[in-house]
């Protein structure tokens, strides 16, 4: 393992995770106003539909697939023990990967051709979309050329990912992997590294808390039961507010 390799498969992942963690907190606290994914649906809606929906759907399922193999590799291997179940898993994953690719391609094409969308596009939008495009194309190629990914990911790459996460980096398995897989891993690190500097920040503020919230929201700037009572102690703490 030379220095270059250890940088790519040990240094870069740690750098990416570090920048992602610290950067996200810094961005949220320092410029929380801009933590969102500047929606352009208001300027163009029809083409967005054919881009955004397949892209998000594909991305979420593919990501969950990776997460599953990472969290319960044994379960995935057991599922794959039967060839039919393996095929079902692989084909489903590939279909959503294609949906990811088609959606993202449409989004990218829309972004560079529609003058209205150009007006709300910055460099980081293009960079991150290109990186994601490269990532999904690499992933789809790996799935075609090196079968069956769901099995060898669970058995060979999951230990590598855990080794990184548990601060016992062991990139041996990755070094033995084909170039396409290695590129897929390097690109993944880059994407994670760039999250705090791009619109991808919006995935960190996905509004799941909405489900547990009553519909109406009233904010009082003083405690209305206490405010008229002279016997109440003055309190320097603000009442619950934004």
């Amino acid at each position, binding site marked *: 393992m030379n220095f270059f390799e250890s940088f790519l498969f040990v240094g870069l992942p740690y750098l990416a995770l570090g920048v992602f963690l610290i950067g996200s907190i810094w961005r949220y606290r320092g410029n929380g106003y801009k933590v969102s994914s500047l929606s352009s649906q208001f300027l163009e809606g029809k083409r967005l539909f054919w881009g955004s929906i397949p892209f998000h759907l594909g991305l979420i399922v593919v990501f969950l697939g990776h997460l599953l193999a990472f969290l319960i590799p044994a379960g995935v291997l057991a599922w794959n023990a039967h060839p039919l179940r393996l095929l079902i898993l692989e084909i489903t994953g590939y279909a959503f990967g294609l949906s990811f690719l088609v959606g993202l391609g449409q989004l990218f094409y829309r972004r560079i051709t529609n003058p209205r969308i150009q*007006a709300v596009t910055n460099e980081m939008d293009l960079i991150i979309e290109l990186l994601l495009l490269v990532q999904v194309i690499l992933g789809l190629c790996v799935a075609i050329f090196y079968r069956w990914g769901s099995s060898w990911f669970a058995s060979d790459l999951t230990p590598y990912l855990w080794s990184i996460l548990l601060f016992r980096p062991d990139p041996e398995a990755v070094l033995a992997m084909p170039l396409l897989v290695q590129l897929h891993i390097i690109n993944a690190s880059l994407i994670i590294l760039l999250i705090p500097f791009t619109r991808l920040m919006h995935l960190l503020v996905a509004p799941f808390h909405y489900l547990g919230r009553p519909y109406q929201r009233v904010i009082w700037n003083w405690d209305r039961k206490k405010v008229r009572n002279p016997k109440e102690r003055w309190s320097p703490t603000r009442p619950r507010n934004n």
Partner: protein
Amino acid sequence: MDIRSQISMVFHLDKCIGCHTCSVACKNIWTDRKGAEYQWWNNVETKPGTGYPTKWEDQSIYKGGWEKKGDKIDLKGAGHRKSLTNIFHNPHLPQIDDYYEPFTYKYLDLIESGPSSDQPTARPVSLITGKPMNIKSGPNWDDDLSGSPDYARQDPNLEAVTPAEKEALFQLERMAMFYLPRICNHCLNPACVASCPSGAIYKRGEDGVVLINQDVCRGWRMCITACPYKKTYYNWNSGKSEKCILCFPRIESGLAPACMHSCVGRIRYLGVVLYDADRIHEAASAPDHELVDAHLNIILDPFDEEVIKAAKENGVADSTIRAAQLSPTYKFAKVWKMALPLHSEFRTMPMLFYVPPLLPVMASIKNVDQSAQKEKMNEKAKVWPDKWLYDTSTDELFGTIHQARFPMKYMAEMFSVGDENKVEEVMKKLMAVRIHRRQVTVGDISEEKAAETLAEAGLTAEEAEEIYYLTSLAKFDDRFVIPAAHREQAMELMEFAGDKKGDTGFGFKDGTAKRGL
């Protein structure tokens, strides 16, 4: 009983001249920014017409407001499920072209273009892309276009009107229109608040102003769909929603909002009302025909001892209770029952009430053969020598209301969920006050007749005088009764005064004792 105070408004449509001064005052203060060029927090529409954004009243397109499902109500185009499943692409979001693409002209070309054989021109350029564009629509594009096939005939409120009435409405000689100024209604059951996945939109407890916290808004765009009045706007540049803030910095200093302050026709009234927050849900879930009454019923009598006691216990300031007693909006909406909410069927319980217009209704009453009439016309002056079109005589009293130039059904669709009687009652009152004042000032009506009219409209002479005063003579302090913001309790309504004590002066938000992040 959970008594709160709420800023409410009344717009007297009889007095609106459609000058758009309110819109311009608002635009100059709040929306003269990139991304907000197309936004008119205050706009004035010509009715009948499609409005802004186009056909906003048609909820089969925009899916705004609440809908009744059994005993309960839920948001129509958003809500706990739809706000999340539609988050990647909101199928009911209006597009910028439903409003208009903002533009300017390249004025500098008039001065700086080089020598050429043609006159220099200032081409229109888009304020979004900066590229030359063909203007297809703009602010108040359908202003005064009553009767036009593209605008007036597309008015969603005309669906309930019979085809014959519709045709009569658009006959060239009988064409009528009125203006409908609109701002955020600062609803009691706001759909925008309910739809916001981030929880950025909230109702300010102290005075009920609905605001969007720009730091919390993530631009999920659900409020734009949910607001049936289309009064939340998406800023395409900042990626946040914005809306009318009822000029809260002005209100907190005791000034009327800019649109109301600048109103040339003095059509606008602002005051607080006390209401029972525990009954909001019940009132918003009422059956269609009871909606208007249910809405007005939760507004409470500020003179009632019980109400005052409960309000005080709930932290409502004495000055606010006093303001509620003097409130012009309470008088119009509740005491005289002359002001009605716009489109109650959206179930958001808007706190902006309208006095429906009488003028276009009573101006035309006669049905005469037109060919005969044409021969009578004076060729030079282009007028008829008789009272063919306009008859201002008062012999028939309320007869004119039934032969209205505007179908009563049309008014009812807008102001009383289709209940013509409700609008008619208001019209009678408006007419009775006129007849009463005509008896007093002109004197060509007998006292008995005036009294008879008042009685039929359910008013006393004293009430008629009061209505006349508040309609025609009222001064600033009568039209805008704004309670103190109580800075002794909160420096601005956003911050506790205690937090600011010992701070480093202007510009520092953190206390001086704070270190680190």
